[in-house]
């Protein structure tokens, strides 16, 4: 009620400020006034030039609890307004109107919270008859529990507002925007689809100055598929970050803990443009950012850098190398002599397990199931045969013919979601489903650093679309799908991931032990408590 009064009061006052002001300037002034008002509320003192506004209604606003609930329904339908692009606040800072005389040095989180709250009020003001109350919060957002997750932008490609926001963000970070390619199947039109023949590097300057050379190299290797597979991508990412940290020098008047994190942000955007980040990479980045922010400010630069480098080495050693050893140890208990093990595609972890089991002289044979267009199973086959394991190779279309012979199925995972679903290469859910019908046990092997807090029940919501031209194959000199773009009713879909429900998975082998699929949230909670 009071809030509406305040809003109306402002709008009534607009003509006083001069009709020649443009809409943006008015909005800017409005925001500025609100900010000034908040300043006054905080300090409980009268500002120098705030006589035009009546502040009493503001101070009588109800406490900020409704903010959280308010945000929840408002965030999902209108995620476009929630994150505030920095340019929007820039004109605020440069506006000529008088700013409060003694502006306290606020922390960035508080300023962000204020801006966010201000935007909420603006939006609420635009919606007539909105029953928004108490959106104006005096409490910085960091004090509230971050319960609301916004939709990530990479699953909202068909929303032009989100795309525009992404373009602005990339422009600010001086990273070129990679344009989508080709016709997208309508069910997946909300995802990016890039072409391998149009690399991001053609829009960059050649001695890349904005982005560190090792990051450019990494992005190229991701987009061309030279580094593929969840573990390999994370290790390569951490290796590149080590180079970045080595070459980093703190600019004067800056702190390493804050500046280095800001330096890493455009690199991460760049890598995201080259190929969408995997869950394991996301967790690795979170870890690095946390480690960087935890560097004490009195630490000297050299010391801080060596500390970070050892942290990275330790992370890789613990979460990837030793985890693989632990998982092999558990998994080998499950492999008995005479087993026929089915694997799908290439999973570095499953390959590791099988090679170790073979070294421990278990007698088994392997059936490698493969699928187009990636045909990663060939590489798995090569590595197993190189060790001397006897293998059979089939395509996924022959799955039901071969399953009667199989005694267990070992699958790798790209990520384990918080509701127990397994996200893995497309085709994995097929294997799990058919194995379930044949009553063959399905064991998923996954390190704990790949557990992520996302929840998904189907493969449509969030996925990755690979280059559709990969589906073209040339046999006997003829490429049938060569002109697929000219056929208007034809769309090529090259999905990368799919999710397998936990009912089809019998056991998950992690470095913490062998757990059922539904215990993933427990592990996540324990991990969060540790950190």
């Amino acid at each position, binding site marked *: 009620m009071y809030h509406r009064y305040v809003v109306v009061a402002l709008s009534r006052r607009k003509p006083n400020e001069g009709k020649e002001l443009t809409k943006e300037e008015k909005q800017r002034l409005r925001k500025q006034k609100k900010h000034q008002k908040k300043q006054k509320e905080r300090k409980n003192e009268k500002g120098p030039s705030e006589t035009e506004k009546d502040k009493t209604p503001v101070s009588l606003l109800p406490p900020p609890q409704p903010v959280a609930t308010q945000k929840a329904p408002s965030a999902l339908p209108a995620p476009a307004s929630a994150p505030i692009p920095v340019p929007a606040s820039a004109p605020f800072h440069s506006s000529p109107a008088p700013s409060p005389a003694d502006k306290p040095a606020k922390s960035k989180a508080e300023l962000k919270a204020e801006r966010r709250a201000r935007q909420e009020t603006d939006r609420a003001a635009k919606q007539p008859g909105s029953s928004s109350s108490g959106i104006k919060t005096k409490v910085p957002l960091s004090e509230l529990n971050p319960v609301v997750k916004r939709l990530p932008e990479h699953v909202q490609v068909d929303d032009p507002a989100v795309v525009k926001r992404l373009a602005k963000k990339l422009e600010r970070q001086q990273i070129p925007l990679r344009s989508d390619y080709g016709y997208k199947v309508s069910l997946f039109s909300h995802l990016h689809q890039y072409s391998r023949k149009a*690399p991001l*590097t*053609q829009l*960059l*300057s*050649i*001695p*890349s*100055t904005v982005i560190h*050379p090792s990051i*450019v*190299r990494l992005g*190229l*290797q991701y987009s*061309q*598929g*030279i*580094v*593929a*597979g969840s*573990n*390999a991508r994370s*290790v*390569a990412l*951490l*290796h590149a970050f*080590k*180079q970045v940290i080595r070459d980093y020098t703190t600019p004067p008047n800056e702190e390493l803990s804050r500046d280095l994190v800001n330096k890493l942000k455009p690199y991460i955007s760049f890598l995201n443009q080259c190929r969408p980040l995997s869950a394991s990479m996301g967790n690795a980045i979170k870890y690095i950012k946390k480690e960087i922010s935890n560097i004490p400010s009195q630490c000297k630069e050299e010391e801080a850098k060596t500390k970070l480098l050892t942290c990275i080495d330790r992370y*890789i050693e613990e979460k*990837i*190398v030793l985890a693989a050893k632990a998982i092999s140890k558990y998994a080998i208990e499950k492999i008995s002599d005479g087993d026929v093990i089915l694997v799908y595609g*290439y999973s*570095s972890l499953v390959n590791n397990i099988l090679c170790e089991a073979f070294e421990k002289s278990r007698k088994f044979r392997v059936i490698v199931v493969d699928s187009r267009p990636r045909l*990663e199973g*060939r*590489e*798995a086959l*090569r590595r197993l*045969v*190189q060790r001397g394991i006897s293998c059979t190779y089939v395509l996924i279309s022959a799955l039901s013919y071969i399953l009667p012979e199989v005694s267990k199925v070992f699958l790798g995972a790209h990520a384990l979601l918080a509701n127990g679903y397994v996200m893995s290469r497309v085709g994995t859910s097929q294997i799990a489903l058919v194995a379930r019908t044949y009553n063959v046990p399905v064991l998923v092997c996954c390190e704990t650093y790949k557990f992520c807090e996302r929840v998904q029940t189907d493969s449509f919501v969030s996925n990755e679309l690979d280059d559709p031209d990969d589906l073209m194959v040339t046999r006997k000199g003829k490429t049938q799908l060569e002109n697929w773009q000219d056929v208007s009713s034809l769309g090529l879909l090259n999905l990368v991931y799919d999710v397998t429900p936990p009912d089809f998975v019998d056991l998950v082998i992690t470095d913490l032990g062998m757990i059922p699929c539904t215990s993933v949230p427990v592990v996540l909670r324990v991990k969060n408590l540790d950190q």
Partner: protein
Amino acid sequence: MELQAVLMAAGGGSRMMDLTYNTPKPLLPVGNKPLIWYPLNLLERVGFEEVIVITTKEVQKMISTDPKVKLDVKMKLDLVCIQEDADMGTADALRHIQQKVKTDVLVVSCDLITDAALHEVVDLFRAHNATLSMLMSKAHEFTETVPGQKGKKKTGEQRDFVGVDGTGKRLLFMANEADLDEGVVIRKSIMRKHPRMHIKTGLVDAHLYCLKKSVVDFLADNKSISSIRGELVPYLVRKQFSKSTNSPKVIDETHQNLKKNDSNVNLEIQISSRDEELLHLTQERSCWNDHRGDMSDAYHGGRLRCYVHIMDEGICYRVNTLAAYIEANRLAPKLFDEPAVHPSAVVSERCLIGADSIIGASCQISDKTSIKRSTIGVSTTVREKVKVTNSIIMHGVTIEEGCNIQGSVICSNAVIGRGADIKYCLVGSAQRIEPDAERTNEVIVGTDQLMEI
């Protein structure tokens, strides 16, 4: 910093002495811009901010003093002079600037005119962590008649045999016909690793190389290599498949052999980088392989890799012969969008200037002249009733009335007397052609510039 650009502009232009005896090759006008402008423009367009230019003192003097030679590039040019008579090859020049080289280098030759997408070459260099990455192009036949050429064009150019793998990117074999005695000899180790190899001839080497810093350091230790194209590149291509680079146990020995001056060992040490274990771990976990069909790992476990990008379409010329020079002049206007007629040229209204002709600055074109498919240089005077077709006129030339110039190259400061009829000739620098002369298919140079035998 990722890459440093090095421009080799110290070459003498030995294959077109008639043009270069007075003007050094980097400053020959092509489309009224000095030849060196084209690679500099390419580097600038791509985003380089500074270039190391290796050149002779003469060129440096002309660049700084001569107003006609205007290199309007925004990059910072670091000119390094070498002695003209030192007979330094390109590799020797790289060795000379070894102290300035801090990262990987991109070596470009001054006579390269191309509109290639450089990122293709550099992407190969980056993505595969290659030691060498180069650019080549399909050769186009030269269609213009070359002045002064008597008889059929002889295929005196020695052929290059370039072997690439199935993807067309990995360079497996490179040899020049001159180095081969009877036939092309290919080692069995190459055939075992790459059973399908495509051997191509008829490719133009653009002389654009991305080299790792370790190669420059290697050159500093091995003074026997003097030319990049002639010796270094074939050496690196051969070294990809030599046993010493591939066996992993060599790495342990190299740590002990640091003091030895064995060239093989040196290259090996320098290839290995820090965090080798992490890179190795990545490669081990990644499911990518560059070939299939055999049991070996990606790149066959080799640590030295050479890549090539072969352009199918687009302009790529090396202006090192007269024919190439003429061809480049035809195509140069397509590479930049300046107006064909320079604004400061004085052109009378009653002359016919074809659409594909270029008129330089401060020219004076009088009435009733017809200029078709030609390039007129800076400060040239063309009097009345002159017909210029298919020709290249350099700077400061005076063409008197009534001349007819066809298919010729007139070098700077020459004077063509009135009524002369020049067909398919090359008129050297500062030469005078007497009035009413009729020359066909001749090379007219001064007596003091005749080649010493």
